[in-house]
């Protein structure tokens, strides 16, 4: 593999990892607060739909982003109600949310646009276009560092940079602020937070809502950043991969960056080498396509057996039975 190819694959990995990263961080907030969320997929999908619809109607990607966030937030509220307020089963709520998004997006899309669940293609300012960072073109000629800066670092949509900025931000929030301390505590032992006079419900709801915002960004990126409009089921399992990445990352922000990068890289590699020729055998493309899932299982089996989830995760906080 030559240098430009590596740059291209890395560049592709970066684009592909962004929805994973945003969704993974979304899950991180929620699960660190003790609310498991397998509904990332559904929230992303819903956000992609609302973002594309509003971006199309207004011609503004930013309005689309807001709408995407609103769409995901709406489902977050449902998740919060069922798993925090009514102390239901968080996994089941997540499953329901995934179905809800999958059905509603097509139903509403068909009603509004009559395109079988698709939205019309977005053009111009209705999409987040690629940004060229300063001096990108000037520096491209510099050997080594030049292409890295000009082709890998520069030339992504603004949401990509936002997503990467979210990693240190999340770390800082989690480990350096009062909010983060309470958030982590509520996922480990909600009673400790409660007896300290802090509302468990409010903490968990904040976390679930932040999760919604990040999922909203992920969905908006799918529909208005990396592609130009909504197509039904366009989240295509990315929410589940993000979930796997979260476990792989052991619920830590910097590791989340690494895990989602790995998955992005895998997908980019599978794209680049669809039928991997290993000399004697050619790996069929079906296998290459299933590779992220297989690897997830292998990773889950091999390395994260000891990953300890937040201790109160998945459990509703019940004071009085």
């Amino acid at each position, binding site marked *: 593999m030559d240098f430009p*190819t590596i740059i291209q*694959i890395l560049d592709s990995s970066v684009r592909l990892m962004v929805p994973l990263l945003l969704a993974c961080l979304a899950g991180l907030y929620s699960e660190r607060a003790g609310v498991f969320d397998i509904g990332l997929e559904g929230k992303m999908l819903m956000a992609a739909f609302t973002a594309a619809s509003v971006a199309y109607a207004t011609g503004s990607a930013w309005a689309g982003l807001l709408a995407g966030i609103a769409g995901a937030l709406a489902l977050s509220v449902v998740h919060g109600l069922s798993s925090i307020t009514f102390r239901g089963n968080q996994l089941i709520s997540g499953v329901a949310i995934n179905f809800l998004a999958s059905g509603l997006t097509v139903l509403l899309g068909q009603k509004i646009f009559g395109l079988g669940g698709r939205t019309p293609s977005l053009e111009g300012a209705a999409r987040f276009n690629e940004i060229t960072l300063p001096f990108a073109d000037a520096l491209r000629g510099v050997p080594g560092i030049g292409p890295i800066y000009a082709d890998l670092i520069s030339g992504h949509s603004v949401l990509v940079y936002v997503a990467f900025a979210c990693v240190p931000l999340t770390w800082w929030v989690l480990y350096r602020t009062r909010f983060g301390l309470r958030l982590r505590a509520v996922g480990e032992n909600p009673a400790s937070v409660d007896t300290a006079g802090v509302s468990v419900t409010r903490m968990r709801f904040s976390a679930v809502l932040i999760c919604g915002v990040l999922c909203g960004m992920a969905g908006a990126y799918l529909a208005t950043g990396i592609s*130009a409009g909504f197509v039904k089921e*366009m989240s295509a399992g990315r929410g589940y991969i993000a979930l796997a990445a979260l476990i792989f990352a052991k619920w830590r922000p910097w590791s989340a960056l690494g895990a989602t990068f790995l998955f992005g890289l895998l997908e980019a590699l599978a794209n680049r080498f669809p039928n991997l020729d290993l000399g004697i055998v050619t790996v069929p493309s079906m296998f290459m396509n*299933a590779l992220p899932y297989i690897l997830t299982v292998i990773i889950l089996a091999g390395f994260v057996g000891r990953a300890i989830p937040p201790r109160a995760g998945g459990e509703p906080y019940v004071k009085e039975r």
Partner: protein
Amino acid sequence: DPALIFDLGGKFDKSFNEAAFGGAERWKAETGGTYKELEMQSEAQREQALRRLAETGANPIVMTGFAFGEVLNKVAPDYPDTKFAIIDMVVEQPNVQSIVFTEEQGSYLAGVMAAKASKSGTVGFIGGMDIPLIHKFECGFAQGFKATNPDGKVLINYTGTTPAAWNDPVKGGELLKAQIGQGADVVYAAAGGTGIGVLQAAADANILSIGVDSNQNHLHPGKVLTSMVKGVDNSVYEAFKAGADLQPGIKVMDLASGGVSVAMDDSNKPLMTPDITAAVDAATQGITGGEIKVHDYMTDNTCPVQ
């Protein structure tokens, strides 16, 4: 009344279901008649839908997609007075018209055009779900391309192995970018909703793309080289028009009969250099005249060119 049954992909798949819908609508507009339409929601429903329509007296009943083949084989004998037409599949029953398209021929032309339009000598093919039918497109395209530019290269990618592969524009775009990275400057997308993402990404990257099934030239005027159009709309229109007199047997919609073609319209006119037009004409004549034999992948699951 005639009836039309869409396959699982749905009426608005931007592909042949939608084309079939277009044909029916044209018939409706022209004749003022009415027709019944159904969309499948499950495998078990296919038979149900066919029988229900036959029992309500619909005639002829047109269905899109090879997946109906088995069921139609079973159902058609029970309704000898009803005429059926099936697109993309051969069903040998006395009251069934089988309409098949020589996609390999249309794709061959697309390959010729891609070869002529490509400056780098490398072009891409992006398929949706990895099934034999799509390999037929791929193989025809590769043959046309190689015949025109034997030293050139065709990059081939499939989006996935599940039906989700038809609906992943993000991955479609990414696949295209990977192909561009390897030098591709023309891409042929046979991938349903994913293809929309491919065409978009091609337009964004300022390279040429080739649409499929319906005429997709208008999606990005000046950026879509052509579309490999299947005359599904015509077939449906013809079948509806024939009504109860629909001719049973196999109807091969090939290049010669205009069943498959490469779309030329105002949107891609500026791209049509005399060189391209001449090459397309020559290839068309070669195929219709029989001098050029385009291999059909489905006959033996192999492709003569790689």
